[in-house]
């Protein structure tokens, strides 16, 4: 297909499209109502539900923090609290940055740059979240055990023989998968940004 042919075909398509009568007033007005869930709207809903669960768990730990009498349990409790509060806030902020990109005022290039950077930041957060969640798995169990059953897991060695290997295997595959996804997406994002510079 020559360039000239491309232009001709494009014009032919444009004429065909102009003649189409399928789009009715009713269909157009239905589209103006946000009845469908757009991509980021959907992610934002999941992330908000996740954040609410995290905050509820953080509140529970916070109000019962006094039950964590020993220093190592308190350390686990503090890490759990920080994870449950900070990470969801950062993720929601990052999603808001994407949602706030002004598609009306921005130029096309500005949108590409802002979107790519915001998406990159969100992915970085998700990656950090994946790694930190393994630490969380390690710290949550003793905290939960102490708060819910009043048992100090660090004094009960048996459970660690089961818990640690299972956690290790899960961690190995999960991080490999997470890192692979992140690397692919960010490298494509980097090439987009470098092309625009």
């Amino acid at each position, binding site marked *: 297909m020559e360039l000239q042919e491309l232009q001709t075909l*494009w014009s032919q398509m444009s004429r*065909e*499209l102009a003649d189409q009568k*399928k789009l009715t007033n009713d*269909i*157009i007005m239905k*589209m103006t109502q946000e009845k469908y869930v757009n991509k980021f709207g959907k992610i934002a809903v999941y992330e908000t539900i996740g954040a609410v669960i995290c905050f509820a768990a953080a509140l529970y730990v916070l109000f019962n923090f006094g039950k964590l009498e020993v220093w190592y349990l308190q350390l686990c409790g503090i890490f759990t609290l920080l994870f449950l509060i900070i990470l969801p806030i950062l993720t929601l902020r990052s999603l808001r940055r994407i949602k706030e990109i002004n*598609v009306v005022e921005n130029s096309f290039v500005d949108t590409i740059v802002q979107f790519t950077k915001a998406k990159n930041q969100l992915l970085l957060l998700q990656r950090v979240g994946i790694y930190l969640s393994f630490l969380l798995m390690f710290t949550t169990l003793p905290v939960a055990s102490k708060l819910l059953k009043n048992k100090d897991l660090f004094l009960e060695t048996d459970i660690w023989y089961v818990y640690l290997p299972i956690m290790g295997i899960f961690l190995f595959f999960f991080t490999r998968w997470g890192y692979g996804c992140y690397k692919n*997406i960010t490298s494509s994002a980097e090439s987009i940004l470098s092309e625009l510079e």
Partner: protein
Amino acid sequence: MSKEEAFTQLIKEHQGLIYKVSSLYTEQQQDQNDLYQEIVYQLWKSYDSFRGEAKMSTWMYRVALNTAIGQLKKKKRAPNTVSIDQGVVHIMDEIDADLDERIKALNAQIQQLSILDRGLILLLLEGKKYEEIAEIAGLSLTNVATRISRIKQKLKSKMTKN
């Protein structure tokens, strides 16, 4: 004429523009439907704020292209939209099979370009002057000219290979 009537009239007049942007920035039909609806939704949302400082088509191209960037994705996923009488996706159903095939081949060629280049070639094929392309893209005139020249070379070499 009410606001709704004016808007639906506008969309009908420019339905081809929205269709072309959504088909160049998506691969699956369902994604195209999602993007088409999102563009119409964004146009409606910003319809009041359109003050006529820019040309109507410049405003529409800008919103459509900017919205397309937010919908870029890598892989297949489950449908997100509600069914709107299938009217959007099948807007081009009634054309002959040969033309349909050639349009698909044309889209496939353009989809191999980067996201910025896709937008620039779309505007060029739409018959936009470099000044208007520069305004929509947010690039200088020289930059637009250089990039378009490169895109033409890229497309030509791809076409020669095929």
